[in-house]
């Protein structure tokens, strides 16, 4: 027998103190209520018999004291939480990995797969042996332990109740690593995975030496439709119009007639019926969508009005960023091609000044220096240099080159998007020598000729040539390149605006200078998120529309963004009856051994309570008085 609660010394101290107090009360004379009687000899004659049994009376009084001391001793031992020595350390140590991924929200099990898994987890806990201990872990993209490695069933059951599903995938590898860490050094380790089996095999395989892995499958049906992609973009040269892309998939085993509807700001915009073969993915464009100010939502269901087993992937959200007129300053002695390119975007406020008039009053999102490179003013925004002189250029202007073109360019760069530069001919210019952190957007075989970077927290783009000395200005790539460059500085983007994807770390741009941000989740809860390098960083768990707030009162900036499940693997909800871990099939768990769980302290308290009731009864019946 060992004490796992309060240490022996503390128990002895507590018992000693309480026993001393009890003794004191017994030693102190009872203050009795005086009552007058007419003839005390009558009472004496009655009590004389009791005097004869005074010894017994005293004995009964001492019996009462002894009973009190026994009660105290029982309570003291109960505080010590005694356990049988054999039951300590010899039982199993079980880690319950409860799958909380998006697929566990499927309703083929009533009410959901997750609730079915929790019920089975409770069965496992109730089947634990007297000396078994268990740890409950919520297995999402990041495993979260919800209890300690405990043998207290109440704690474990409460932890199971706290498991919540998220719109992320389950990361079995991380969960197994956590379980292996928890079981390191513990005897008879066992991992019980409660899941629908939609778990990618962990790579590399976790080290589970000496740990038994068992699998409890949940789920019945794999019938599911999913929106696997949903995005929206503005037309590059008409930003008032939108184009929407929705991609859907039929993950069931039968051909399905589905209804895909598009909603804008809470009102239906378009709806379409589609036939989707089993296992097929289908993309659908909604072109020339207008009138929507902010939110777009795609909804998917069967054409007969029924829903599939997993509602989480039947809706997708996207937000159109607000359009804002960008302010552009052009410092040039005169450049018709540049002016023409900027005229193509009606949402630009262009201010043109001579180099001698720089800097003019006002704040700008971007400044284009045409052949000049004066010291930039504070409010000049992002800087675009066209053929800058040697002095003043943020990138060193190196040797002069002639008769060259774009031999390589960064096709993924936002600045060069949609721009065909392969056959651009440039008469003359200079090679550039970027620094370490700079990015070469385009280069000839003689050196970089288009470089982007940041100096003193100010972004810049440098052209190593005068566009008028090339045929670039005659090509469609010229206005695209100029507008892309301006848009990259003014934070407007004409590209597909894909929503964030759940199960990833989101880095959301925030207003310049913001240090703290508050994120409002789709369910309305709020939480503070850290800001690093001008971006709010958070882990996305839920699909829906988020609001990110920075600053207070006048400086308050609210940014909205959407997040979608968009995970084909999580949408494949066909339940797996078996699970392979480290190349081996995980069997079903076994019931615990070692008899029922025994909480000796509870037994002691029950005995103490019973004795107390007996003492109370006998005292008030004047038996032990």
């Amino acid at each position: 027998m060992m004490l796992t609660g309060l240490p022996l010394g503390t128990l002895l101290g507590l018992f000693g103190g309480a026993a001393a107090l009890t003794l004191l009360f017994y030693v102190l004379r009872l203050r009795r209520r005086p009552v007058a009687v007419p003839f005390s000899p009558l009472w004496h004659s009655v009590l004389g018999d009791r005097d004869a049994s005074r010894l017994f009376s005293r004995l009964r009084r001492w019996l009462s004291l002894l009973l009190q001391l026994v009660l105290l001793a029982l309570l003291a031992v109960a505080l010590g939480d005694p356990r049988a020595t054999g039951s300590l350390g010899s039982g199993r140590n079980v880690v319950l990995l409860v799958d909380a991924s998006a697929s566990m929200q499927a309703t083929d099990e009533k009410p959901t797969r997750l609730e079915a898994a929790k019920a089975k987890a409770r069965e496992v806990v109730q089947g634990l042996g007297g000396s078994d201990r268990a740890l409950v872990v919520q297995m999402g993209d990041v495993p979260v332990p919800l209890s300690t490695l405990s043998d207290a069933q109440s704690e474990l059951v409460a932890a199971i109740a706290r498991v919540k599903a998220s719109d992320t995938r389950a990361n079995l590898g991380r969960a197994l690593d956590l379980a292996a860490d928890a079981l390191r050094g513990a005897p008879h380790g066992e991992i019980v995975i409660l899941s629908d089996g939609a778990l990618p095999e962990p790579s590399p395989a976790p080290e589970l030496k000496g740990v038994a892995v068992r699998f409890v499958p949940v789920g019945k049906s794999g019938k599911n439709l999913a929106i696997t992609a949903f995005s929206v973009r503005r037309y590059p040269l008409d930003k008032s119009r939108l184009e929407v892309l929705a991609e859907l998939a039929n993950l069931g085993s039968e051909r399905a007639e589905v209804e895909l509807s598009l909603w804008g700001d809470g009102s239906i915009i378009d709806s379409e019926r589609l036939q989707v073969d089993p296992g097929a993915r289908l993309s659908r464009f909604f072109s020339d969508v207008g009138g929507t100010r902010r939110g777009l939502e795609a909804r998917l269901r069967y054409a007969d009005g029924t829903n599939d087993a997993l509602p989480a992937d039947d809706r997708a959200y996207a937000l159109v960023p607000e359009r804002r007129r960008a302010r552009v300053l052009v410092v040039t002695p005169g450049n018709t091609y540049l002016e023409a390119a900027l005229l193509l975007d009606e949402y630009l406020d262009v201010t043109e000044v001579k180099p001698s008039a720089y800097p003019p009053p006002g704040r700008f999102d971007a400044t284009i220096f045409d052949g000049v490179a004066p010291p930039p003013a504070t409010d000049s925004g992002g800087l675009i240099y066209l053929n800058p002189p040697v002095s003043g250029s943020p990138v060193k202007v190196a040797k002069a080159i002639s008769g060259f073109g774009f031999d390589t360019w960064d096709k993924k760069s936002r600045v060069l998007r949609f721009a065909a530069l392969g056959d651009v001919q440039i008469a003359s210019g200079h090679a550039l020598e970027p620094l370490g952190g700079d990015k070469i957007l385009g280069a000839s075989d003689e050196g970089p000729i288009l470089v982007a970077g940041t100096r003193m927290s100010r972004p810049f783009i440098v052209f190593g040539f005068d566009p008028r000395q090339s045929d670039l200005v005659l090509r469609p790539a010229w206005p695209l390149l100029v507008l892309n460059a301006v848009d990259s500085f003014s934070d407007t983007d004409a590209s597909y605006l894909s929503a964030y994807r759940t199960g990833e770390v989101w880095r959301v741009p925030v207003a310049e200078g913001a240090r703290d941000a508050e994120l409002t989740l789709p369910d309305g809860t709020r939480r503070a998120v850290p800001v690093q390098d001008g971006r709010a960083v958070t882990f996305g768990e839920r699909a829906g529309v988020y609001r990110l707030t920075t600053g207070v009162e006048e400086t308050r900036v609210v940014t909205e963004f959407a997040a979608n499940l968009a995970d084909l693997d999580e949408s494949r909800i066909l339940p797996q009856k078996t699970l392979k871990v480290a190349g081996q099939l995980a069997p079903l768990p076994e019931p615990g051994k070692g008899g029922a769980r025994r909480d000796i302290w509870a037994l002691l308290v029950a005995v103490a309570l019973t004795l107390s009731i007996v003492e109370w009864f006998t005292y008030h019946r004047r038996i032990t008085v």
Partner: protein
Amino acid sequence: MGILELFQRKKTPRGPAKRVELFDDEFQRKLEMLALVSRRVFAGRLRAERRSKKKGSGVEFADHRDYAPGDDFRSIDWNVYRRFGRLLVRLYEEEEDLSIYFLVDCSASMGFGDGKKFDQARRLAAALAYVGLANLDRVTIVGVNDAVPERLPTTRGKGRIFKVFRFLEGLEPGGPTDLGEALRKFAAQHKRRGLAVLISDFYDPAGFEHGINVLRFEGFEPYVIHLVDKGEAAPALDGDLLLVDCETGDEREVTVTPGLLGRLRTAFSEYQTRIEHFCTSKRVPYLAADVSTPFDETVLSALRRGGFLK
């Protein structure tokens, strides 16, 4: 209402103490009825016909004694002298009216509780005294505890009943009980012997026998009325108590249990039985008077039982 008042025990409002009318009109009407009843019980007897043990100048011969100088010559029995040559004087039983003494226990135990015992004792004394006065007996009332604190001088005639009332109303219970000592003083103060009606609860630490024996040995004819309050045999007590004797102040710690109360009832009953047996064995008339019984019923019981009036 203040918060502290919530914890205060509610007190029953009390008006000015109501004086108990011991001898009200109803009481006096009952006395008249009792007097009539007593006449029926003793019908045919003449007043003052009771023979006393005293030898004197009555008409009924009792005995002879030797002549002594100074005796009335008319009382010499000349027939005896002629036959035996001795001078003997004829003795007759002297006829005189009876003296009745009412000895009312005035100890503190009589006033215990609500004082029902003491009130009943005074009513009984008053009623029996009225019967006695109505029969032209000499009535004396004496209060006793461990001494003789109060005494109503001997009186006779119905018209003195109000004097008796006033005396009884003036009695106050108090002091310890010692009937032996008190009745010795009483006997010493009253040379004329007669009927001594002792009305008491007999809660005498020295023993109830002493008082009765004193009366017997001093030549009185004792008549015992034992006042019994059955509530004292079954007090509403429970738990750990300190018992205090209302007369002696004697204290005793006790834990009252139902069993103990049962034994107390038994002891109380046995005590009453002992008194009755003692009186019966000594041919002393005994009457147990329950305080809850109307006094007139008790008086009638006393009259019917006999011994009170000869």
